[in-house]
């Protein structure tokens, strides 16, 4: 027992505590409830609501449990007459100006004030004077405000300052006239700002898209996983009558803590749109006509069967499809004799894919980044690619980790950045080589890479020193590096840098399941489990540059979700048969698709995503599929049956997953490279560089979520 361990007594029960802890930090883990509004374990202590007043022996007055440090031998009473009296008095004051509009308040039923008023409020108010009224603020398309309900706990203000890193809300005025607001009317724009909805203990800040849609007790809560980025944020889906009405965070300290990105929270709005595909359709005379499943599947099976006999089949899947869909899709492709299958739709450099890791991963657990000594992020607008991971980096940076970037100019980070080495993307390779040179100089170790190290700048030296500053350092390649036309070389150089400094080497995998796509064998050169195939097929670039006879496209829209964009559509037009499995009717599909089969979104299918730390996270369907849409794995299974292939006898997604995992076996993450490719002085032009991802343009679902499209971030990045 160290000197820091002390004993206190709460309601007569002895508890051990550490010096410096507040009373509430000892009672919370012990399950002793103390009412509170302003205290939140992820935010700084404000002690301004006074709801957590408790009696402490020898203290003349009740003390706030959230701001009273424990001392050895302290005796705390949370339910004594004095404590309860203090809490009741606080509640009476809080209710003085709070409107009695619970019946029309979205927070009703899940309101901390309502709950505590039940426990500590009087049944009749003694207050006969006028209540104050506060004008509502327009803070953007995501968060609705009813500021008269605000009790000034300042959780939202502290969130914007401490978690988002950009204080957008403040406490204005004082006393009776105090208000929470922005002063000058403007939107609250940070990509995590939706979290203030959960933090608000009353109905002042609520979800604007959800406003007046349902009462909290009418909905069912089911666990699910975010389909947007590779952290795999844990979510709760709230559904009513089979419809997904709201998404809130499911706390998971290892991944998203208690936060989720606005993209995870509001993308559900894209599920129910006018362009949702409700029946299978086929193209006749330049327009799509609805048909039934049997006809559509028969038509697809016939054409794919023909192609398998005498033609080339190309299969492309979104990296955001489920592991089950990925597995069945590659099984279908390979059973039809084709290794032309890929999910790397944005990649421009797919050479050197022998060196691909078994599956791309971060190189460390998400939570590990927080205690890093140094991190180097190469080619990533990480706030837009993976907002929740950017938050981890921010926490690390604030705690003293040295966070370094090798990035194009203009990405704003709201934390102390140790070194931001600016480079045009076209110069990323020479910059990375120069950094390798700096690392060699610092470590005294020499890399085998035969390439002229170029001009080493002070910025490179500072990054090299930083990476050597401690034991725990990480090198991470973001989307701008993995989508770069010189990716395989960037990867080799970065891997050398990581090896020389003893850092982990990692990637930010695309979408929510790129790692799963690798595991399931949705690549032309590897079968499930990473087993090499005898004759590698054509990769995504090749398939989208030169037409196959027939295509199967799963879950993406070529003009937005591939590196080629419009050129991909031209290629697809050259095919004789294209079948899409999609949830929406893509307006450009009429140019190339022959049949579109409607599949469920992430909310309407059971499935599994593999995140950036290699976790398989399974979830079940939370909402009823729209119209005749069916989960993707079922569609693929029936297609297998129709084609009279063996081994498509799955009854549910769990059976598909079991079969996939039996095939995948044990895969260990490993980002090392067996043999570095030749690094030449390739010249790139800025015109061929990948554009930074649009935070609200990354997948078909997000692009259809209207609340997100109305944000400033969406408008600012619309031209990408």
């Amino acid at each position, binding site marked *: 027992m160290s000197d820091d361990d002390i004993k206190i007594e709460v309601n007569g029960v002895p508890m051990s505590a550490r010096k410096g802890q507040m009373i509430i930090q000892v009672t919370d883990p012990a399950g002793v409830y103390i009412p509170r509004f302003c205290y939140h374990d992820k935010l700084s202590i404000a002690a301004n609501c006074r709801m957590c007043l408790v009696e402490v022996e020898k203290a003349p007055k009740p003390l706030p449990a959230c701001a009273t440090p424990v001392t050895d031998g302290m005796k705390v009473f949370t339910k004594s007459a004095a404590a309860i009296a203090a809490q009741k008095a606080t509640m009476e004051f809080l209710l003085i100006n709070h409107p009695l509009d619970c019946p029309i308040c979205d927070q009703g039923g899940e309101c901390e004030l309502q709950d505590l008023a039940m426990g500590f409020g009087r049944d009749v108010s003694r207050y006969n004077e006028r209540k104050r009224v506060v004008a509502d603020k327009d803070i953007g398309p995501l968060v609705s405000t009813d500021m008269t309900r605000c009790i000034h706990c300042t959780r939202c203000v502290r969130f914007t*300052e401490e978690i988002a*890193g*950009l*204080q*957008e*809300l*403040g*406490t*204005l*005025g*004082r006393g009776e006239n105090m208000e929470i607001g*922005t*002063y*000058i009317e403007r939107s609250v724009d940070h990509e995590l700002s939706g979290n203030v909805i959960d933090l608000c203990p009353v109905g002042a800040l609520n979800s604007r898209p959800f406003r007046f849609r349902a009462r909290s007790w009418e909905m069912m809560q089911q666990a699910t996983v975010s389909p947007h980025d590779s952290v795999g944020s844990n979510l709760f889906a709230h559904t009513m009558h089979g419809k997904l009405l709201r998404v809130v965070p499911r706390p998971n300290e290892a991944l998203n803590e208690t936060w989720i990105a606005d993209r995870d929270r509001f993308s559900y709005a894209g599920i129910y749109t006018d362009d949702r595909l409700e029946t299978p359709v086929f193209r006749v005379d330049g327009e799509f006509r609805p048909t039934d499943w049997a006809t559509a599947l028969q038509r697809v099976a016939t054409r794919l069967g023909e192609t398998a006999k005498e033609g080339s089949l190309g299969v492309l899947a979104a990296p955001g499809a489920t592991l089950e869909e990925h597995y069945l899709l590659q099984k279908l492709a390979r059973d039809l004799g084709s290794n032309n299958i890929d999910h790397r739709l944005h990649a421009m450099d797919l050479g050197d894919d022998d060196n691909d890791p078994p599956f791309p991963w971060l190189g460390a657990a998400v939570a590990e980044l927080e205690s890093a000594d140094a991190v180097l992020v190469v080619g990533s607008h990480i706030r837009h690619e993976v907002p929740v991971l950017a938050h981890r980096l921010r926490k690390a940076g604030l705690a003293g980790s040295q966070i370094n970037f090798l990035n194009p100019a203009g990405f704003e980070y*709201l934390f102390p950045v140790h070194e931001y080495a600016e480079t045009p993307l076209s110069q990323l390779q020479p910059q990375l080589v120069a950094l390798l040179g700096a690392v060699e100089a610092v470590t005294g170790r020499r890399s085998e890479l035969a390439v002229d190290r170029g001009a080493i700048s002070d910025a490179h030296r500072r990054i090299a020193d930083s990476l050597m500053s401690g034991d725990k350092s990480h090198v991470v390649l973001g989307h701008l590096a993995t989508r770069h036309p010189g990716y395989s070389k960037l990867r080799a150089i970065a891997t050398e840098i990581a090896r020389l400094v003893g850092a982990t080497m990692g990637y930010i995998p695309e979408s929510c399941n790129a790692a799963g796509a690798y595991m399931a064998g949705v690549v032309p050169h590897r079968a499930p489990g990473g087993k090499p195939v005898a004759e590698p097929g054509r990769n995504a670039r090749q398939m989208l540059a030169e037409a196959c006879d027939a295509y199967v496209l799963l879950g993406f829209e070529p003009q937005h979700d591939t590196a080629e964009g419009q050129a991909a559509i031209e290629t697809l037009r050259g095919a004789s048969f294209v079948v899409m499995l999609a949830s929406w009717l893509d307006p450009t599909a009429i140019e190339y698709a022959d049949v579109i089969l409607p599949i469920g979104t992430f909310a309407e299918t059971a499935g599994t995503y593999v995140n950036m730390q290699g976790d398989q996270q399974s979830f079940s369907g939370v909402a009823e599929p729209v119209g005749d849409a069916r989960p993707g794995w079922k569609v693929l299974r029936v297609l297998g049956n129709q084609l009279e292939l063996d081994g498509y006898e799955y009854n549910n997604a769990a059976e598909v997953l079991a079969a996939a995992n039996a095939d995948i076996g044990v895969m260990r993450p490993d980002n090392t490279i067996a043999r570095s490719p030749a690094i030449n002085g390739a010249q790139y032009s800025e015109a061929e560089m990948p554009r930074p991802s649009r935070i609200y343009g990354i997948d078909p679902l997000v692009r259809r979520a209207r609340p997100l499209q109305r944000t400033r971030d969406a408008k600012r990045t619309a031209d990408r």
Partner: protein
Amino acid sequence: MSVSNKDTSQLSEHARQVIDHWVAKFPPDKKRSAVIEALRTVQHENNGYLTAELMDAVAEHLDLPTIQVYEVATFYSMFETRPVGRCHISVCTNIACHLRGSAEIVEHIEKRFGIKTGESTPDGKFYLKREEECLAACVNAPMMMIDHVYYENLTPETVDQILEGLK
């Protein structure tokens, strides 16, 4: 870090010097501590009130989010965030002055100028503050402060003389 319009041209050279003088008194990461003095100076140079542009300029100069400057400006009664008359008349209405007749003084000034507390005279010369807390001159109550100068032992007649003298 701030989200202002990145414009500090609104600040005079003198204001910058004063602000930097105050910034130097605090630790480098506590620039926020200089907000009050910065706003005082800027308000003084702008005929006694602040504008959003000026507050943004202060935020930019101190490298703070604009909202942190707005918070301070709206909290303290000595800052005005809308255009007001040039002479700020603050009549203390706390308990000691109240017992010695400050209500009568306020009423007298209101009548004299034809304005209510919180309003300015149409000619832009005088501004009668809405509320002034104790200014620690209770021994000579009632009292008022005009542009940082104390006037004590007031009667309606002496108030008239003082205001005449200001013209």
